[in-house]
């Protein structure tokens, strides 16, 4: 029987798991230092303690206590809905179009120029148009998110589909697979590395455009809270919003890669 090599000792593994926390810790310490040394005025640069308290209140507070108390759950759900709504829309359009133009030169010629011209337009340019079309609110946000996430998904799917080793498709053909299985059983798995990269980039940019869409004055959502806090001069709340968006963005990236890994062998067993 083959011999399996041992996994690295547990202690080492534990230390490695803590490594990603090192930088945030350093930032927090520096933050403390700046505040205790009084290098910046409190109203421009709130300390960790105050931000912590605000954050706690925002997440766990009783809604009657103040303007931001206990709003987190609702804001988070609203924002997540917009991010994933826009993102899924981008996947539904970007992935098939990308794979098509990666494999079929006519599709590439047909779409390539147009899509790349659109891509050259900064996403923020669409904001006025979106506001006119969809008004202030969820639809505009989803539109912006979907549009922004579309490009990395499309481009990476196309690149992934293009670089699939033709030998793999020939091998499939000789083993008698039909068109459908060639696409789902060979082409997509072989392009999976690029596809996952595209999805991750798309999801990352989806968060950026979520905030852009929510800055326009919607009622709920993490971006709306940040905008609202700016008008009320609540810097501490802005910082809380930024930190929460960072955490949720990272978590959703983890969720995405984890989800892809558990759904697809080809994502799990990347060479």
């Amino acid at each position, binding site marked *: 029987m083959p011999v399996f090599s041992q996994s690295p000792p547990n202690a080492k593994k534990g230390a490695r798991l803590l490594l990603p926390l090192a930088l945030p810790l350093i930032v927090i310490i520096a933050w403390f230092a700046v505040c205790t040394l009084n290098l910046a005025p409190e109203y421009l640069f709130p300390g960790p303690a105050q931000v912590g308290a605000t954050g706690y209140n925002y997440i766990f507070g009783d809604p009657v206590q103040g303007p931001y108390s206990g709003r987190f759950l609702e804001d988070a759900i609203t924002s997540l809905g917009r991010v994933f709504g826009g993102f899924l829309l981008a996947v539904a359009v970007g992935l098939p179009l990308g794979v098509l133009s990666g494999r079929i030169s006519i599709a590439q010629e047909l779409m390539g120029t147009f899509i790349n011209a659109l891509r050259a337009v900064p996403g923020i340019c669409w904001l006025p148009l979106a506001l006119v079309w969809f008004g202030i609110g969820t639809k505009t946000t989803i539109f912006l998110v979907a549009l922004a996430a579309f490009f990395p998904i499309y481009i990476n799917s196309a690149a992934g589909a293009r670089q699939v080793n033709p030998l*793999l498709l020939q091998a499939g*053909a000789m*083993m*008698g*697979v039909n068109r459908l299985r060639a696409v789902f059983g060979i082409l997509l798995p072989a392009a999976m590395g690029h596809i996952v990269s595209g999805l991750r980039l798309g999801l990352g940019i989806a968060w950026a455009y979520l905030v852009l869409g929510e800055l326009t004055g919607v009622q709920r959502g993490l971006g709306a809270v940040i905008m609202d806090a700016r008008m009320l001069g609540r810097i501490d709340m802005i910082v809380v919003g930024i930190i929460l968006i960072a955490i949720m963005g990272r978590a959703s990236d983890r969720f995405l890669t984890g989800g892809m890994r558990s759904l697809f*062998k*080809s994502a799990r067993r*990347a*060479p």
Partner: protein
Amino acid sequence: MKANLKLIGGLPRAEKSPKVLDLTAVSKVFPISGGFFTAFENLTFSARTGEFLAVTGPSGCGKSTLLKIIAGFLKADAGKVLISGSPVKGPGADRCMVFQEDALFPWLTVEENVAFGLFRRGLVKKKIKERVAHFLELVGLAPFGRYLPGEISGGMRQRVALARVLVLEPLVLLMDEPFASLDMQTRQEMQDLTVSLWKELDQTIVFVTHDVVEACSLADRVLIMKGAPGRIQDDIPVNLPRPRSVDSPALLRLKAKIRQKLATGL
């Protein structure tokens, strides 16, 4: 029975069986920048069921192209390619290829790679499992079913490549310098394995190789091709008993003869 067949009149066993592969005046022209390039023209040869055919010749004479045409990945520009009497229209599981390069699916385990071509055939899961296990056993990879291609050696990957086509029981097995990238020792093992499987499964094999000794020690017949544009220069029967020793005088004589032909083109 098989042994008897093999010894009739001292002829290779395939001499009396029907033609499974039949090429007549096959030509292939590639469009290239600024014109056309004739890879080969007017190739005619056939192989009988159970025959082991080796094809050798200088680099660029069209050996790979020939296999790809038989496999159906490329279309011939002229001539006829018949498999068991019917023309080749495209790729199909009756002609399977072991590629020179690694062409396993890296995201599937060894087992799943071997099972890949079987799912279409309406076999139940259990049957598939049994067949896969049987063929992994044949190529000596039974303990490695759950490994990924990236976790095993090059020689083992070529065995998987062999198993995944053998399991489909193709009429014709096409092998394009399958062992060229292996070390001597592994190569020798793979050659022995190929011959023993060929005897056991009664396959027809077209085996492309640069190595004249490999051709002589494996095949019933050696086709010698000549370059640019490719054509068949000679068709040499190898009437040596098996198992063959690579340093038997008869084999060495044959090797010298083929080397001579390759060098002088006579």
